[in-house]
């Protein structure tokens, strides 16, 4: 216990100082990007934790795009400098990184792959007028109403509308069952594919939701088996999709598997097993490294730079970064609203198709259908 007199002295001194400092409000909220020196661009993705493979691919795509621009002399004579930030898939960490980007004078941001993190960072980036391009595809991102927010790929609606049309029109499948999870990605898939089916007047025979951690799907799969659907739509991340496919075949379910991007990955094929994965129909904006001249060139450069085979996420991030760099060329390195407008004006021919951004920040409005055969993704007939 301290005597009250000492406390009085302490408090008095403290409040005097408080009064003195209260005269001026502290801090300035923005560190504006400078117009000389390198143009700074941030890559924000999970580089640790469960989503880190995604983050690693995206970083490589972005790096490649920047390397190519720098090799050609940069933008308006200035080099582009890429910095990586690890958001750990945690929204709170994301907000700290957003502040770091703002005060660090970054012109633009590539990322993130996690829609929750992207949404958490959005208010800060919006008020600092920093354009960013995410690889997320959640509808919620397009509804943020920020002119600085872009998507480097299609939304779930685009993926699933294309898929649904192919399945019902080209393949003439009649009955559908759906399994989606309640994670950020799965919810988007659930809503988009259900809506697409509804537009064709089809009600799925089973439309069940699972959790991202679930390991056993006997109950839902047996239920589905008894309805004998033509197609089982799987709207979950890679590993879970693989487990669902594997268990479905083990239970004697014969339906065709269909889904979007995660089902095009090697992780899905390995988890399900190549024989199970064969015949899976996938809606994707990036069919293979051999599809076009552009993708061949990209895949070769990627192989050369990182010693591994390119895939969808690297391509998406490569496209997104390239569009941002092209826009910066237009504005001569100037960021802010000018750059965001330039992105919207840009008609960019990328690996994923022709980008044409609408006011929701979506640039790709179509996908193609692929099929897995022999464990590899190829174009569907």
């Amino acid at each position: 216990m301290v005597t009250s007199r000492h406390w009085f002295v302490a408090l008095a001194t403290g409040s005097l100082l408080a009064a003195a400092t209260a005269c001026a409000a502290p801090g300035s909220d923005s560190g504006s990007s400078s117009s000389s020196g390198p143009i700074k661009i941030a890559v924000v993705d999970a580089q640790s934790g469960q989503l880190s493979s995604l983050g690693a691919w995206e970083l490589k795509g972005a790096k490649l795009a920047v390397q190519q621009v720098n090799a050609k002399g940069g933008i308006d004579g200035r080099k582009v400098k890429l910095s990586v930030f690890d958001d750990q898939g945690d929204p709170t960490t994301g907000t700290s990184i957003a502040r770091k980007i703002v005060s660090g004078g970054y012109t633009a941001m590539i990322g993130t792959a996690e829609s929750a993190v992207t949404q958490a960072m959005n208010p800060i980036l919006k008020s600092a007028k920093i354009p960013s391009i995410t690889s997320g595809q959640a509808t919620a991102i397009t509804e943020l109403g920020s002119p600085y927010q872009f998507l480097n790929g299609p939304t779930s609606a685009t993926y699933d509308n294309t898929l649904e049309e192919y399945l019902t029109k080209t393949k003439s499948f009649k009955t559908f069952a759906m399994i989606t999870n309640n994670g950020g990605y799965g919810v988007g898939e659930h809503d988009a594919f259900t809506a697409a089916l509804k537009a064709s007047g089809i009600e799925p025979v089973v439309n069940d939701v699972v959790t991202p951690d679930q390991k056993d799907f006997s109950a839902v799969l047996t239920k589905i088996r008894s309805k004998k659907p033509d197609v089982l739509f799987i709207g979950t991340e890679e590993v879970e999709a693989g487990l669902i496919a594997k268990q479905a075949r083990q239970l004697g379910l014969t339906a065709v598997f269909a889904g979007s991007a995660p089902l095009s990955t090697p992780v899905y094929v390995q988890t399900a097993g190549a024989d199970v994965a064969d015949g899976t129909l996938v809606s994707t904006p990036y069919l293979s490294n051999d599809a076009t001249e552009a993708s061949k060139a990209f895949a070769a450069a990627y192989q050369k730079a990182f010693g591994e085979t390119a895939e969808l996420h690297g391509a998406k991030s490569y496209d997104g970064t390239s569009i941002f760099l092209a826009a910066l060329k237009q504005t001569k390195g100037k960021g802010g609203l000018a750059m965001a407008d330039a992105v919207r004006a840009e008609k960019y021919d990328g690996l994923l198709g022709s980008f044409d951004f609408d006011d929701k920040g979506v640039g790709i409005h179509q996908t193609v259908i692929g099929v897995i055969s022999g464990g590899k993704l190829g174009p569907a007939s």
Partner: protein
Amino acid sequence: MSRRPLTRSIARPALWVVVGVVLLALPYTVGPYPIHVVDVTLVFAVLAIGLGMALGLAGQINLAQIAFFGIGAYVLAIVTTDAGWGFWAAAVVSLLASVVAGLAVGVPALRVQSHYLGIVTLGLALAFTSWVTNSSVTQGANGISNIPVPPLLGVDLSSEYLYYYLELVVFVAGLAFALFVVRTRLGRRMRAMRDDAIAAGALGADVRVLRLLAFTVSSVYGGVAGILYAGLIRYVSPDSFTISTMFLLLAMVVIGGRQSIVGCVLGAVVLSLAREWLTDFATYAQLGYGLVVVLAVVFAPTGLAGLPARLGLGRRRDGAERGALHDFVPGPATAAAVSDAGPADLQVEGIGKTFRGLRALHEVRLSVPAGAIKGVVGPNGSGKTTLLNVVSGLYTPSTGEYAVGGVRATALGPTALSRHGVARTFQNLRLFADLTVRDNVLFALDRSRSAASAEYLVWPVGVVRDERRLRAEAEELLAEFGIADFADLAPRSLPYGIQRRVELARAVATGPRILLLDEPAAGLNGQEVAQLAQIVRTIRDRGVTVVLVEHNMGLVMSLCDEVAVLANGSVIADGTPEQVVADPAVVEAYLGDSSQLRDLVPDQRTIREAAGDDAEEVRA
């Protein structure tokens, strides 16, 4: 208090002034990124204080703190964005929601403790995550964005610099309240319960109420932190309230020092900053803090807060400074402590107690007149301690009834019995190990109800006044019992004989009408036994009935007015000491050698009585 060196009492406020100035001036010296980090850190600091109150102070393993945090943030987000309420009105709602959640999570703590509680609270935290991930109200995995900026008299709180001051005010208030609780009766009770819930219950603390309170307090801090988080980040999603964040929070509290509120804050600050600093090495950071937690529990269980003491810095009083055990000098404090209601009699009618078919007591009949000293003796395993545990409410008897002071007491729990005037000591000493001797006595002197802790919010001045009065009484009582020299020491650092004296003082401090002593002379030397006899006699003379379970026959014979002998769970003799010693049944029970009966030395008790101490089915 007056013995603290002068330099220290000046240094302390000086330190606080420096800290205060630094905290106030901080926003003027840093950029927008550091201030954001500081803002987040303060949220975690508030959260950590809450966890510290449950885990460190009350010993309740609470892995649902992250859910309280989440509920605070989510309810605020829902009520502002969905229902369109103002921020502060919504804050009140979300605080209430957190408290309700706290009470709900606290209910299992009434039944289970330790790791069971850990897994149940962890499960409930996962249930919360499951709810927010699925519900359409919480907008599932997408989370809720566009939470409004809290309005405050025209101050623009969208500036994180100004938001910092709001957080600072809340944090300081929260810290001050936590310290206030820790240093007054509620905190003392919680610590006592943490150290020994059975003893705390038997000495009158309503353990159930305290556990619920611990969770409630914890949830209030969780809710406040959630509100601050929502106002700062203005977006909530299930990803913000994961189990890994819970473990990070746990690491903060353990590394900082769970038993010290300031330590918890320190841990939150250190780990938040470390996490930010190591953000590019997140996996290694995780590896690192896991390692530090392991090292902390093994080598520094008191955490950062306890480091100065462990390193031998600061004051430390040991042997030489300890002082001496003085004679018992009954005075006004002892007299005041003893209940005005006068001595109570004890009537035991046909009590039986079986443990899983093992009969410990059978048809025990015992009458202890008011104001008498009654000895209960018997060979090891005869059921003496079981009998004491029954009449102090720890065991529910299988059959029979007993009454204290003419009131039927069979159905009363230990806490109610304590309030009714039954006090006891324990065969194996159940002092609150991490409380000082003074706090042990203060705990017993404090007869207020835990349920009345609303006074902390309504009229804190009353709490302070009570505390002053209690402290004055405690000083006197410690002096009269001759243990004033040890007031600031932890009981376990003291010799056995002194600990026995402390336990006796603690029992008397509860204001008993009847005092149950379980082998109070065990481990005492001859002189100490003589002092004990004098103390017991004096207490009886002041108006307390005494029941003495004892092996030291010399003490029993010289002290007791009446003696009952137990053998195999039944009373085989009851009468004056002389009558009992002459009883052939008694002689037979003691292996047919009456001389052994007289010579029984206290320290021979090595094997525990059947179902003696610590047994199951103890009523909390």
